[in-house]
């Protein structure tokens, strides 16, 4: 503990604190440093001034769910010893192109503050932030202990920025680049890791498309003996993959490159043996353009798999079923809906330990009905996988009865995200709204934290949610509801609600203003294409100074309507970096 940070504790002025008064700061700090959960730490800091002080000195990791809820100055002032920062920026709907470009969430100001106050910063995890090459270069040059960089759904940088990281971060252990809007000009960044560099443990560049220098990659993999996670991109062929596997039998997580190649018998056998030799692989992804012919090379490796990500592989039900038979220990599975209900039945039959299932649509914009998955597949999984608690399911039809069965089989859902892809679609057998489906979910699944609803929904769904979903933290609503009452039920009824995102619903000013008191206990509210007016937003902003009320205007729309509203609590006041299309009220 830094000695200059010690301050004499003041004597407490209440009897209850008499006990803690004799508890030396040093011990308290050691005890608190064992606390890792952010929520526990927040609670601790509220106990009393001594604990607040001890907590802030001992905290090394900070998680900021909304980068505008606090400023770099406030953060660095309160926590002097931070080594690890996680920052989330744009509202989630920016993933679906609903947020204007240049909206904000730029990391640079944070990095400048960190360079001054946290020169020993080791880890940076960013989600939906704007990151420029300049920022990456700044990061690479100003933090000698920097170890871990994770960028998820960020945008604004190119492979040049990655080159800077590779060149200068001598202690890097993790480089994880996922699903970013990255300008991928060349794969030469990978060759920038110096030959003396050996500390890498995690390398994920599956998101990038440019070819990398495979020799450089092989050498890198060979000399980084602690490499546990390797996820390569499409440009890596099967033969190249085999050479990498041979050099890294200790791998635990593997993302393959393209699984499509002309392999004669000998290289195929080599590939199979390379996979067999990697006995620690528990996570498998990639498999771009997988041809069923080569999947058997994986079969032996599948025995220990706990996470299989086939969401970029268009497998049909038959070939998928053959694969899944070999994966009895699977806990997490991501697939495309090309596997169809039959494929999901195979999952139900073979994966009793399954906890998480995500089914993505291969062809979401197709206007004709094609197969894909229906309620039957979901039901089949629920019968076979009783431990299921996380589902993301894109489908074209659903029934209330099916959902009721599903939650009866699996009452432990914590995350239930059902997307019936046609907006406003009723139960296709009874033609009724899907209210009872989600009613069943909230009534049965008392641990539910996250819910996404879809289909034809009246206010009844929201009455159910408000009445039963007492642990709900995140709710996503689209094309649903009948009146303000729906939204009001949720705002009044869900005590733990933190994030509410609504689009294209008939909720208006009354609903918005009914949540006045509530929004300060939430992280954020998003409402777009609803019936909210500018005046209501102004009223809200006026009455709640600790909320930022931002309206994004679309060109050519009615001036009195608030097209997109983003409201969030903050201690940093209104932000100054908003683009012209974003009005802060």
């Amino acid at each position, binding site marked *: 503990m830094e000695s200059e940070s010690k301050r004499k504790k003041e004597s407490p002025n209440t009897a209850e604190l008499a006990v803690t008064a004799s508890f030396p700061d040093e011990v308290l700090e050691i005890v608190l440093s064992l606390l890792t959960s952010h929520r526990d730490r927040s609670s601790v800091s509220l106990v009393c001034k001594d604990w607040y002080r001890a907590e802030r000195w001992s905290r090394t990791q900070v998680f900021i769910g909304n980068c505008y809820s606090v400023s770099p100055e406030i953060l660095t002032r309160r926590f002097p010893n931070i080594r690890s920062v996680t920052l989330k920026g744009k509202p989630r*709907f920016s*993933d*679906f*192109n*609903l947020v204007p470009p240049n909206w904000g969430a730029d990391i640079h100001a944070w990095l400048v503050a960190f360079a001054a106050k946290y020169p020993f910063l080791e880890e940076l995890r960013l989600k939906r932030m704007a990151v420029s090459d300049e920022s990456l270069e700044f990061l690479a040059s100003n933090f000698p202990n920097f170890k871990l960089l994770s960028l998820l*759904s960020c945008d604004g940088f190119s492979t040049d920025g990655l080159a800077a990281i590779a060149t200068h971060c001598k202690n890097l252990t993790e480089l994880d680049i996922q*699903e*970013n809007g990255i300008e991928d000009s060349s794969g030469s960044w990978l060759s920038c890791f110096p030959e003396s560099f050996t500390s890498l443990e995690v390398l994920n560049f599956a998101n990038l498309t440019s070819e990398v220098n495979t020799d450089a990659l092989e050498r890198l993999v060979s000399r980084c003996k602690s490499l546990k996670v390797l996820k390569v991109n*499409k440009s890596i062929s099967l033969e190249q993959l085999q050479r990498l596997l041979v050099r890294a039998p200790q791998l635990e997580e593997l993302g393959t490159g393209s699984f*499509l*190649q*002309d392999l*004669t018998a000998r290289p195929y056998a080599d590939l199979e043996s390379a996979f067999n030799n990697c006995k620690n692989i528990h996570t498998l992804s990639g498999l*771009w*353009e*997988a*041809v*069923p*012919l080569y999947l058997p090379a994986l079969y032996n490796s599948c025995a220990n798999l706990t996470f299989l990500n086939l*969401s*970029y592989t*268009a*497998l*049909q*039900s038959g070939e998928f079923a053959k694969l899944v038979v070999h994966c009895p220990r699977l806990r997490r599975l991501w697939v495309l809906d090309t596997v169809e209900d039959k494929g999901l039945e195979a999952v139900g039959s073979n994966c009793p330990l399954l906890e998480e299932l995500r089914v*993505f*649509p*291969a*062809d*979401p*914009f*197709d*206007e*004709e*009905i*094609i197969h894909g998955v229906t309620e039957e597949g979901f039901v089949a999984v629920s019968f076979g996988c009783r431990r299921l608690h996380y589902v993301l399911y894109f489908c*074209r*039809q659903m029934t209330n009865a099916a959902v009721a069965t599903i939650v009866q089989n699996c009452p432990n859902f914590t995350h239930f995200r059902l*997307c019936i892809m*046609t*907006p*406003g*679609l*009723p139960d*296709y057998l009874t*033609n*009724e709204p899907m209210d009872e489906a989600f009613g069943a979910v909230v009534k049965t699944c008392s641990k539910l934290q996250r819910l996404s609803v879809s289909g*034809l929904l009246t206010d009844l769904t929201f009455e159910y949610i408000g009445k039963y979903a007492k642990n709900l933290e995140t709710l*996503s609503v*689209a*094309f649903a509801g*009948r009146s303000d009452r729906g939204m009001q039920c949720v705002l009044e009824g869900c005590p733990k609600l933190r994030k509410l995102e609504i689009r*294209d619903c*008939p909720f*208006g000013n009354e609903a918005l203003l009914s949540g006045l008191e509530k929004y300060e206990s939430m992280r954020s509210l998003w409402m777009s*294409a*609803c*019936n*909210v007016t500018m005046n209501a937003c102004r009223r809200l902003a006026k009455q709640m100074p600790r909320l930022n009320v931002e309206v994004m205007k679309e060109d050519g729309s009615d001036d009195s*309507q608030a097209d997109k509203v983003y409201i969030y609590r903050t201690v940093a006041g209104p932000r100054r970096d908003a683009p012209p299309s974003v009005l802060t009220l």
Partner: protein
Amino acid sequence: MSASGSVSTVSRDDHLVLSSEDSSSPVESELELGLGLSLGGGGFIKAQQQASGGGGGGGQYARILTAKDFSSVVSSSSCLSSSSSSLSRGDYVAAGTKRSSDSVAAANGSSQVVGWPPIRAYRMNSMVNQAKSVASEEYNSMMENKRKNSLVEKTTDVCSKNSASAKGRTSPFVKVNMDGIPIGRKIDLNAHGCYESLVQTLEDMFHQPTTPSFVLLGSSVQEPTRPSKLLDGTSDYVLTYEDKEGDWMLVGDVPWGMFLGSVKRLRIMRTSEATGLAPRLQESNGRQRNRPI
């Protein structure tokens, strides 16, 4: 079904084959009649006519909304006035804001609601790019290592002209219909490197115990000796495809890469219906088809 007719689903009893807008040319309708897709009462043709009448009207099917559905501005009062149990989707244009196609929509060639379904832009772009990135050279070189009776000539130079990018297809999926089965399927051609693989998958897809002698492919890839029944005409069904020019051809005639470049959709046709297929095309197009039926 609702009174307004715009909230609709496919009922299992409808047996409508849902056809795309591109199958509206009169020549094709004629051809469909000739091949006799059995649906009772020409229901299929009705559906075609409905579909070709425009994307907005037509038969009862659920679909992703297009910009046409949102073209009218709906005032807020109409949203709340509907008291029937089935709302029309137009009610959800709550604030009457304009919808604009985003770049992903442009890539797919159709306009749709912005940001719906909620799939990350990265994932959408990946799926689109996957379709375009596969070159048929790879498929063709795979052919040389197949142990089955080779039905495909080694024509690397031909294939290089007909690379997958020339398909002009944004989706790797083609429709497959089988005579006697009302609802068609879709198949990802990119997942197959050769005819055998494709046919094996089709056999899995359309396998029905009640259908007599339904054997498209006599064996799996591991047994090289049994010939492909579908492709040599000894099955009750033949596999045909419609090419870019709208002609129906027997699958297996041309190199795989060339096939990929020209196939628009597939049909598993009863052999009895297919009799005279090649000669008819020969007559009408004056092109040589050297496959005996």
